[in-house]
């Protein structure tokens, strides 16, 4: 298993980039990643102020978690300036919204590489992720995911995506079913993580949990959240239960024992254990170990 896959990104929490009170408290909610947003959360007239504030926050405040910045798209008048001001502060990740081509990623990759050299950061130390928010972007998802070794995750931006599909979001999420699955396939084929969209209704815990369970079953690694209350809920869904951990330990023990006996067939509780089951058990335990850290 690649080490990168063990990086927990169960809850990636957006924080508006021009709000000092929220930026300085961003670390207290236990999110695996905080995403400082200088895109949709910031008015056009305040883009300069937000990127400066985010730069200072990353440089001066200590965060107990991964710090990402959602920049404006580089085709807007703001994206390149965002990178110019924010990269010297060394965020852990740059998140590109509305990614549509691998070329977008390659351009940013190059800019990050130049900044790393200029400011003396280790080459490759600033990662990237991209949000797919259009049908065109989804058609190019694998190309986007593999355009740079910096890429650690693909995310789906649900609201924009369903608008592009000319539909709207339902509570069950059928309109996103194919897109989520396709995005996951692209991410897995590229060996990176898949992160689900935000659930906009902060007062609908039941809906949030149902959606989070669904995307976990689909194979997603985490979810973007906008409300601190959703952090813990998302993390609980993604954290293996005691029962799952015990079962994984028993699977691995039975497998090991069979190997020692040089027995070709392994069974546990009457069920055959083969390679995918062993791999899944190893994944559960690696995940549990990462959670305990």
């Amino acid at each position: 298993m690649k080490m990168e896959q063990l990086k927990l990104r169960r809850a990636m929490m957006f924080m508006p980039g021009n709000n000092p009170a929220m930026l300085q408290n961003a670390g207290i909610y236990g999110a695996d990643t905080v995403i400082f947003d200088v895109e949709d959360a910031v008015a056009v007239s305040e883009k300069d102020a937000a990127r400066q504030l985010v730069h200072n926050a990353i440089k001066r405040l200590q965060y107990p978690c991964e710090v990402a910045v959602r920049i404006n798209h580089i085709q807007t008048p703001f994206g390149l300036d965002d990178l110019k001001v924010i990269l010297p502060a060394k965020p852990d990740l740059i998140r590109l919204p509305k990614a549509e081509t691998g070329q977008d990623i390659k351009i940013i990759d190059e800019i990050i590489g130049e900044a790393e050299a200029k400011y003396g950061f280790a080459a490759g130390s600033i990662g990237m992720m991209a949000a797919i928010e259009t049908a065109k972007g989804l058609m190019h998802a694998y190309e986007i995911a593999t355009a740079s070794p910096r890429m650690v995750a693909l995310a789906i931006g649900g609201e924009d995506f369903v608008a592009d599909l000319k539909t709207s979001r339902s509570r069950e999420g059928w309109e996103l079913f194919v897109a989520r699955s396709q995005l996951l396939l692209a991410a897995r084929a590229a060996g990176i993580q898949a992160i689900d969209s935000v659930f906009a209704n902060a007062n609908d815990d039941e809906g949030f949990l149902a959606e989070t369970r669904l995307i976990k079953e689909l194979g997603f690694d985490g979810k973007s959240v906008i409300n601190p209350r959703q952090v813990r809920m998302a993390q609980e869904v993604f954290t293996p239960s005691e029962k799952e951990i015990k079962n994984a330990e028993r699977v691995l023990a039975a497998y090991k024992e069979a190997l020692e006996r040089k027995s070709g067939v392994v069974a546990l509780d009457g069920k055959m254990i083969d390679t995918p089951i062993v791999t899944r058990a190893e994944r559960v335990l690696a995940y549990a170990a990462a959670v305990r850290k």
Partner: protein
Amino acid sequence: MSEGRREAQAGTLESADILITVALTEPGAGLQIDLVSPTMKQYGAMIRQVIEKVLTANGIADAMVHANDKGALDYTIEARMQTAIDRAVGKG
């Protein structure tokens, strides 16, 4: 606003923020800092220091600064000052 004196604002009056107006003045006018803060007694001198530090770092010796502080930390004061200066000199 007279010729050669450009004025710009950055920040807000929300809690933990600071609203700063920077007006670049004629050479020789010096620095004038007008600060309003709920924590004037404890932190007034420190806030002034941060404001002066950013002006100096930007090579500005002549300016009038009005700052209405709402409990901003240093990183915010510095960011708002930098943005106000960038806007005043036309970089914003």
